[in-house]
């Protein structure tokens, strides 16, 4: 009897309050992700990136197989799980994309400035993005491991935290305006709280991702770039220290969380 009453209550809820069930886009997206679990279109980029990794290119006609992403030359498995990190040869903290620019310049002779000047999804930048898809897939299901122990990493972590809360532009927005409280939305879009381990794992741990709405693979640099566009800020330079510092901050918060890259987004 009780069970019937419960069933009746549920059906009444379903019939009278469909809005409640449509409140969050995340339910539908979760379903969509489940359907595409074995076929994220990012795989196309990944396959291209794997090829580009071993294919001679640039003025030096060299491949990227000697690129050191932090675990030694040529080691790709688990590499993006421990990025950003400090690199002795550049004396900088680098994220995956700024590090790949270093490798493309030193190994292949492609000037970093050319990639920085370019646009997302075009030219050499597009090749780099494909390599990103390849590299991040090799850290899927691993744990984020960005402890920020080197003094320069600590410095970037502290700067990243301050920049996360830094308001600017004509709408006074900071990253924190949208990403420092649990359970908030812009329109129907759920916003991860990047100041918590759970939210940072959701955010940091699922980018780069294939974006269904634009039909393109977006790297973390591209994600941050569009965040700053919507913050009404000026244009963050590709691979700049602000983007790396914010990445250190997010990755550090996500430490220990499981990586789901490449992700699949609306």
């Amino acid at each position, binding site marked *: 009897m009780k069970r019937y009453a419960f069933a009746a209550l549920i059906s009444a809820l379903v019939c009278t309050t469909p*809005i409640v069930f*449509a*409140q969050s886009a995340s339910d539908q997206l979760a379903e969509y992700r489940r359907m595409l679990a074995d076929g994220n279109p990012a795989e196309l980029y990944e396959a291209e990136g794997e090829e580009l990794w071993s294919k001679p290119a640039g003025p030096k006609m060299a491949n990227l197989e000697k690129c050191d992403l932090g675990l030694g030359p040529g080691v790709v498995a688990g590499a993006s799980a421990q990025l950003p990190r400090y690199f002795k040869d550049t004396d900088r903290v680098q994220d995956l994309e700024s590090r790949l620019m270093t490798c493309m310049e030193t190994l292949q002779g492609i000037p970093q400035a050319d990639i920085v000047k370019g646009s997302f999804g075009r030219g050499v930048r597009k090749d780099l993005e494909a390599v990103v898809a390849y590299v991040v897939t090799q850290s899927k299901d691993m744990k984020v491991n960005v402890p920020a122990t080197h003094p320069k990493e600590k410095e970037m972590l502290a*700067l990243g935290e*301050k*920049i996360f*809360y*830094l*308001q*600017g*532009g*004509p*709408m*006074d*927005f*900071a990253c924190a*305006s*949208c990403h420092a*409280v649990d*359970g*908030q*939305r*812009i*329109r*129907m879009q759920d916003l991860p709280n990047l100041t918590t381990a759970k939210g940072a794992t959701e955010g940091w741990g699922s980018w780069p991702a294939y974006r269904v709405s634009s039909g393109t693979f977006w790297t973390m640099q591209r994600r941050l770039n569009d965040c700053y*566009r*919507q913050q*009404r*800020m*000026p*244009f*963050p*330079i590709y691979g*700049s*220290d*602000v*983007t790396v*510092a914010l990445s250190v901050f997010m990755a550090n918060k996500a430490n220990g969380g499981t990586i789901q890259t490449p992700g699949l987004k609306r």
Partner: protein
Amino acid sequence: MNITFNKLALAGAAALFMLAASPTSYAQKVDPAVQAIMERSFREQGIAKLDRIQQDDFQILCSDAKFRDSPEGRKKTEQLQAAALAAIKPPSDGKYLGDWKAGEVVAQSGRGATWSDTLKTVNGGGCYNCHQVTKQEISHGTIGPSLLNYGKIRGTSEPILVYTWNRINNSKAYNACSNMPRMAHFNLLTEQQMKDVMALLLDPASPVNK
């Protein structure tokens, strides 16, 4: 013509506000290391110039929770709020309420002020990004409070008109670190657009109050 005049009036109000707000006895400095990394990491693009990373007093205060919560920070908060409130201009013709239908268009649009917009872009208020406004629109954000029945609950007495006008013009006059953009301060909305949003919130015929 009218719009141009309003823009000028608003720019004037914004300039007055800057004058009133900038000379403070609690000048708070931006961390030089943060300022340096910001300056070397951005470039201008379209209408988004580099002056946007130069913080004003509100932005400096609200970027630093520790200072904001200190006795000095609280003093500064009061000072900034008072100056902002004093700088808000009432509607030039004394009429607070425009057309709620036009207000709904403003509330729906989140356009404007990005580097992919131009000076000709008609800005939106982006209200639905953060607020529930009408029952009909279920695609709304939750960063701000629900505005359902805003006018039905409060009525349209003079103090309510003035308060609501002020909130839209410069929400930070009441809450220095409110997440809501200062719509008049940076000329984000025209006077007419703000009147239309007022009508959306307060007109008994508006779907907000149905």
